[in-house]
């Protein structure tokens, strides 16, 4: 199968992305020295995701790929999201009990 259409990307684009990634790394390192409490992980993962997106879009040429390839990528990410979301549905609620929603006291009062 030889229907590959090689898209020529100018070196300038690569350089811009490269420096964006370096900047992302710097911000990650700086952020690691600050304590944002609960948001530590959100910030770290947010930057990492943004960087990964740039790599997939430009370095892996997803931006210039046929629609079908893009669809496959989107589906894969969606599928990963299922795995994370449903697993977190356990971890995020493991300490809670139904009795928190309906406090036992409320049950007895009436």
């Amino acid at each position, binding site marked *: *199968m030889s229907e590959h259409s090689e898209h020529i990307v100018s070196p300038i684009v690569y350089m811009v992305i490269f420096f964006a990634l370096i900047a992302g790394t710097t911000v990650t390192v700086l952020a690691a020295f600050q304590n944002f409490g609960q948001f530590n992980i959100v910030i770290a993962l947010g930057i990492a995701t943004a960087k990964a997106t740039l790599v997939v879009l430009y370095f892996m040429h997803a931006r210039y790929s046929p629609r079908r390839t893009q669809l496959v990528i989107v589906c894969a990410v969606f599928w990963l999201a299922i795995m994370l979301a*449903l697993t977190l549905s356990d971890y995020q609620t493991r300490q809670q009990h139904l009795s928190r929603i309906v406090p036992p006291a409320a049950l007895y009062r009436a």
Partner: protein
Amino acid sequence: MSTAPLVPEHELPDTHYLNATYGSGRSIRAWLLTTDHKRIALLYLASVTVFFFIGGIFATMIRIHLLTPGGALVSPETYNKLFTMHGVAMIFFFLIPSIPAILGNFLIPIMIGAKDLAFPKINLLSWYIYLIGGCFVLYSFGTGGLDTGWTFYTPLSSIYSNSAVTPAVIGIFINGFSSILTGLNFIVTIHTMRAPGMTWFRLPLFVWAHYATSLVMILGTPVVAITLLLAGLERMFHLGFFNPSMGGDPILFQHLFWFYSHPAVYIMILPAMGVVSEIIPTFARKPIFGYSFIAASSIAIAVIGFFVWAHHMFVTGESTYAALAFSFLSYLVAIPSAIKVFNWTATLYKGSISWDPPMIYALGFIGLFTIGGLTGLSLACLGLDIHVHDTYFVVAHFHYIMVGGAVMGYVGGLHFWWPKITGRLYPKALSRFAAIVLFIGFNLTFFPQFILGYLGMPRRYHSYPPEFQVLNVLSTAGASILAVGYLLPMLYLFWSMRYGKVAGPNPWPATGLEWKTDSPPPTENFHVTPVVDWEPYDYRNRPDLGLAAGGPLAPAHGDD
């Protein structure tokens, strides 16, 4: 092709894929280096059968051991190894590759009118990867065995077990790539290599089922491969992924393991459903009822199958909310399965049914799969599962689906396409008899296990209270009948390769493209690229099959 319903004497074609002299011809070397999907299918047939035997020997020893309450055969430690190695051999090296890598490999290109799979060399590569993975696992079996259960739960597998866990997880990791490559090959082939006129909605349902299976293989297998590797790394280098004392979480292992292994049960059952969807219309002599629903339900099963995994963890400490969600989602996945069962039944309605051996297996599949699926629903019910979790009820549930369903489909599919694969027929009366022996032996083996489990007999214990002995003896008796039911087909199928009556291109007859070419097919599958201008399963409008249009359709073959 003759229009008479009684098929006259046939002769084998002069050259076909089995005797073709391309490459270095018929030598062992030509087989081991072949890129012909049909020959690779036979390589898989041989190696998968070896693992079926190995797994079968372990199963036999388990059943003999359980004849007496105290355990009749082996030490408790050995018993743990027996059920573990039984599960690993049967699931990863027999059931997962069985239908896709043998029948799928052989049939998908022919069914869509292609000359081979899209990547023939990768196809051969996946067989070698399978063999390498298999060698690692056999090495583990031979040097200390494996006692963690096929589920490899941490921290047992990663810290405490004294058995040969490391080579086993490496073997399963390697073997995973074989699945992934097979799935990839199927998807690309189905997308790009269909013959002219073979539109998506003219694809045989067998192909749809394999498309769905391939999706699961590609998306799921990497997760289990990495997860087992992590457990192996924790074992070898004491990295803390799952070990709480090193900051890990043992339940994370179960999440990741079941994220693959529940969908993996659909890797095992979907191809069998594809087989049944081919057999039922052929021997009911009717177009399949609800073609597009059956096709879509395969995809739905593959997708929803990914949403239900934590129903294996209801009693392992997952949160109540997650358990509620997973219970609900597990009920959802039964809907597409039920759609298939209803459509097969509707296909049978007012059909002209003939009792050929493949049909007996297909009907057996429908009944046994239904029992297995419905008990799955009972297990997905939170309250009930607390009672029967990790009892023989679960064992019976999944054997009804995997043995009664998937293996029935596999053996039935072998019987259906054997004349195509080898060009020869097997003794019909004997094979009907074998199918019935299999059915009886199966039920006698596994039905008592439902009762045992409900009464509270735990699984994976080497001994049991004396009051459970009667049911256990029944189960062992059934297992010996079941063994006869498997040995008989092996013997006469093997015999028929040389001595069976020559089958001709379309012995049943059936409508699929694979029946339009020689039996056995030529290396390039078709002498001329076929053009498809008919609808699938159109048993009403195919005069070329020798079936009368309209009126009562005669079963169109001679007797034994």
